[in-house]
């Protein structure tokens, strides 16, 4: 299962908003040229392997457009 998912239609653009690119320490996201229906350019996931599942992008995203899967250790500890 994928670690990350971006809801492209909810995103308001890496150029206009760009909070996910700022809060991600591992540079998982990159701006892209693909436009969504509303005319914004959502970021693309480039190094998903680098993702530490810190959930920063998910927590900061103002449009609830990013999901990060839960940490495996967290599930084990419960």
């Amino acid at each position: 299962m994928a670690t990350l998912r971006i809801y492209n239609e909810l995103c308001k653009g890496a150029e206009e908003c760009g909070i996910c690119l700022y809060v991600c320490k591992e540079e998982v996201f990159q701006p892209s040229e693909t436009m969504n229906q509303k005319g914004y350019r959502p970021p693309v996931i480039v190094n998903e392997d680098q993702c530490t599942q810190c959930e920063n992008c998910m927590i900061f995203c103002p449009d609830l457009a990013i999901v990060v899967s839960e940490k495996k250790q967290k599930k084990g500890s419960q």
Partner: protein
Amino acid sequence: MSELVHPYHRFIRPTVTHSSFCPGCGDGTIAQSILRAIDGLDMDMDDFVFVSGIGCAAWIPSPLFNADVLHTTHGRPIAFAFGIKMGLTEKKVMVVSGDGDLVAIGGNHLIQNARRNIEMVVICSNNGIYGMTGGQAAPTTPMGVKTTTTPYGTFENVFEDISGLVIAAGASFVARWTTGHPRQLTASIKKAIQKKGFAFIEVISQCPVQFGRKMGVGNAVQMLEDYKNRSISIQEAKKLSKEELKGRIVVGELVDLDKPEMVEEVTRMRKKAMGGAEAAVDTGRS
């Protein structure tokens, strides 16, 4: 292989396809912090009644949240919330609105209900401007800033310490965070929901479109960076002098007290009065 689903999309009203905020607005982060707090406490949207006024931040519960919401007149959400709490004492009442709504126009409702210490959560998103109507100067706009209504710069002193006002009025829980601290904000909202008394949380929120871009403060990322640099925890701030704290944002849980709560007091008084009344009109009939 199933696709990942956002855990908080179930709290969003099904008819709402996207949030009504500008790109990079801090209100979306506040919305998610509220949902995280509710989910973290294993509560349901049915346990809550949300009240919002007029302004950008008022769009957080209405129409975004799939719950009972009152979208009220400008400046009056706390007055409506007061009525709801007195009628439906078992419900949790949460007011989500902006600084222009709660502090500028509805200022006295905020003061008087903090004094009454009625159980409710008030979340005030402070972006320092009237954003929704086009960037007019608000009481929270810093001095000298050029806005739509003050093309040569604001000439009024800024309303610096909203939390201080609420503390002085007598609220039992007051916290201040910025949108750069969503994890801490969620923890504070959790505490505020469980608090018996008036809980006020001021969130310094970025407005990249009306405040940042027009005033040259920058975009959402630059504003978040600025909050990160300027914020200082309350424990650290206590060691510093007033001059050193100029321009800094003191964040943290400023006040957490146990005080008599109004609904409880009213219920107790009603019981007392009813007990007396029943004895007085006892006609001997069963």
